[in-house]
């Protein structure tokens, strides 16, 4: 490996500095809002810290909650690299979770490791198949993937509502939820953490982050994927099939989201399928990826940040009676600030010397093309 150049280091430094600035402004906004509702920011900060990382139990909860967010973020990163705009993560999380729950409920007498594996696989398959509808519509009918994936989210929510009232309904008091999952399907947790809040699936974060980087940079699939995302026409002219690549990318992305659905159910604190188990993970996962600038490693950290906002918001509500919507406000603020920072960065880049433009040797060389642009 060649050492990174000074320019690359400076860019990295600038990026970290931006993230720091975003964090500071967010904190400032939080402080102002807290002051406005009459809560001392320092007391709130104490409560926030206690709720998120103050005790091993709470830290375990925070990290475990970061995993589904991170998985969805990986799904976004895959489709983004392939140049596809797929936003059907809520639906894929839901369907992946339903598939995993359907399998898990049948796993009463299956030994634990196998049952866990089966549930995870079912989740991935469910998410991939749901995303497969999007991929099929795009590849065969040319339906824009952003539209179909967005609309399928609504369908998925209705499917879930039907399942928990119909085929998978299993609670004794006729609530719209399934029976409790068998013990053998629950994902194991670190025994050293009191309350068993830290699931082993946090190990998925570094493993999958590195795995995805390797797949993207070291396999011919990853190469085709990036080539199609980089310049779809050039990819086609070079003999890469961008449609096949796009379909695979969308399915893989759905598999990540489906796994997130399984993780929500089998590593969470509520071991049954219910309406609303998705809890906004699908769209927040996109924000996690964007905040990490589509870097799988960065997404590990931004996922933890988002999870801690969630968990901390809950503890603020219970301890200080601060509305938990504060969390949504702050998450929204983070997204807007990141976008602003990105816009500023783009403007900066366009004022510094741009890439060498193609020499305008023949401005009128291609009359056909030129006239079209002039119109």
């Amino acid at each position, binding site marked *: 490996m*060649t050492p990174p*150049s000074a320019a690359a280091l400076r860019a990295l430094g600038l990026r970290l500095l931006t993230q720091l600035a975003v964090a500071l402004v967010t904190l400032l906004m939080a402080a102002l809002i807290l002051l406005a509702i009459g809560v001392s920011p320092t007391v709130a900060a104490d409560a926030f810290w206690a709720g998120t990382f103050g005790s091993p139990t709470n830290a375990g909860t925070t990290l475990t909650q970061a995993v589904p967010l991170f998985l969805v973020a990986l799904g976004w990163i895959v489709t983004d690299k392939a140049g596809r705009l797929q936003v059907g993560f809520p639906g894929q999380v839901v369907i992946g979770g339903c598939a995993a729950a359907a399998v898990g409920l049948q796993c009463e007498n299956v030994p634990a490791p196998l049952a866990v594996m089966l549930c995870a696989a079912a989740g991935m398959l469910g998410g991939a198949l749901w995303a497969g509808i999007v991929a099929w519509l795009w590849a065969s009918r040319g339906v824009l993937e952003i539209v179909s994936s967005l609309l399928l989210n609504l369908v998925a929510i209705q499917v879930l509502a039907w399942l928990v009232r119909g085929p998978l309904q299993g609670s004794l008091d006729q609530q719209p939820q399934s029976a409790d999952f068998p013990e053998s399907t629950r994902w194991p947790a670190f025994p050293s953490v009191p309350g068993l809040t830290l699931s082993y699936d946090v190990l998925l974060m570094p493993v999958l982050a590195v795995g995805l980087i390797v797949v993207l*940079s*070291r*396999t*011919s*699939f990853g*190469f*085709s994927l*990036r*080539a199609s995302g*980089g*310049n779809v*026409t*050039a*990819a*086609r*002219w*070079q*003999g*890469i099939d961008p449609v096949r690549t796009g379909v695979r990318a969308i399915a893989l992305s759905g598999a990540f989201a489906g796994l997130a659905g399984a993780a929500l159910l089998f590593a969470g604190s509520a071991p049954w399928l219910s309406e609303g188990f998705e809890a906004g993970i699908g769209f927040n996962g996109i924000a996690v990826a964007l905040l990490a600038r589509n870097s799988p490693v960065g997404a590990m950290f931004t996922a933890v940040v988002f999870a801690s906002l969630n968990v901390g918001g809950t503890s603020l509500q219970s301890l200080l009676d601060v509305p938990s919507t504060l969390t949504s406000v702050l998450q929204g603020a983070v997204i807007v600030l990141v976008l602003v920072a990105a816009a500023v960065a783009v403007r900066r880049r366009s004022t510094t010397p741009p*890439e*060498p433009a*193609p*020499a*305008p*040797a*023949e*401005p*009128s*060389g*291609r*009359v*056909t093309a*030129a*006239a*079209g642009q*002039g*119109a």
Partner: protein
Amino acid sequence: MSTTTSGADPRAGTRSSALRLSGVTKRFGGFTANDAVDLEVGWGEVHALLGENGAGKTTLMRIVTGLYQPDEGTIAVDGEEVAFRRPEQALRAGIGMVHQHFTLVPTLTELENLAMGPSLLPLRDGRRTALERATSVESETGLRITPDRRVADASISERQRLEIVKLLCRGARILIFDEPSAALTPDEWEDLARLMRRLADDGHAVVLISHKMSEVFAVADRFTVLRGGAVAGSGAIAETTREDLVEQMVGESVEIRRERGPVQAGRPALAVRGLSVLRDADQPRGPRALDDVGLDLRGGEILGIAGVAGSGQAELVETLLGLRIPVAGEIEVAGRPYVDRSPSSFYAAGGSLVAEDRHHVGMFGSMTLWENINVRALRRPPLVRRNVIDPAAARHRARDLMAEFEVRATSENQAMGRLSGGNQQKAVLARELSTQPALVVAVQPVRGLDVRATEFVYRRLLDQRARGGAVLLISMDLDEVLSLSDRIVVLAHGRVQGVLDAADATRARIGALMTSREAS
């Protein structure tokens, strides 16, 4: 320069000038697209603007219509000096252009398209006024529109007519037609020619951009020829001949033929027979981009394809890559039938392509140089085994090729988009020539390159020939075709107009074939 202007034409004095350009110069960086161009168009006149591709016609008309601002020189409309900063200002001054690609909204009706336009109150429904204007235009010129028909349902010539009506409704009195016959059938062209004459007789000024001699002689009163951005001649059509005009267009430059060994024709590299391709795949009865084209190319040979842009070159390349389905014809690559056509099978058959539009189809700007050089090598052994890439080997191969093809970059990890145009093209050549292809299709391979890089590209193409490979050189630059080719096929309007041996090809002969009467 323009020694034959106005004075030669007795009518020039009586007609007042509609549009007068004096000393208009436009530069793009170091490149001069228009060099002190003088042009005068009178009211009631059809003025033909002629020139090869790259001669500066489009740039000049973009200046006239306010899309570009000239660096030097003045423009006067109806005797008054003007300086357009925006296209709307040119339109307000009465200058309208009928583009090759129409500026209509296909999903709206013809009337709604007419009603669209810059207005002070965006809320007002302009349809009624538009209909009134269209009616008055019809009574003046006989141009009838079908108000309630969607533009998408109209034919090409009907759309063109609507475009003209639109300009007239907006008060255009100087009408510029940019190669209007490109998409028309001969009958439709006849109608359009009559219309141009009628507009001129009604007192409008008409500028016709074309390189078809028959059209120019059929409708134009006067002409101006551009060559290399400057005026090569102008005068009255009645006082000139076809041969004269062709010579003014292509010039008589000294031909620099490259030294090289005699052709050692090897194995067949490319054979095309009876290839016909539609211009628009959705219009099976529409015009053909390629009509019964045949080519024969053997190893150790460079076959040049000369022709103005739009003669079917792009369609030929896309058909070879399998991106266009021909209506008839057979292709053989490297001596074997090439039936199942796709980009990957083209490369597998021994073909390679230096595409014209490098940025759009030939490279990945955001990816590294080594990835770009190895795009196809990264999809088979030895760089890929069991779908796993060997980056060290790929980088090594890229470094070797960068040295061989003199690609200058900080390292093989540099993003392709950060390289200069010449180095990008060298990297593309490295990718395309490194596989020892039986056939290289090179389209405008030196477009936008400086002298040194151009020389390098030519040398590499001649190397390919020397080692027994074949080169299909498609170019709109006659000098390039003349200096490199062993044989030259002249393509015009999708047909092969002639095949010349390099020894007896001259600019004049090729130029005459290029602009010879259209295939009927």
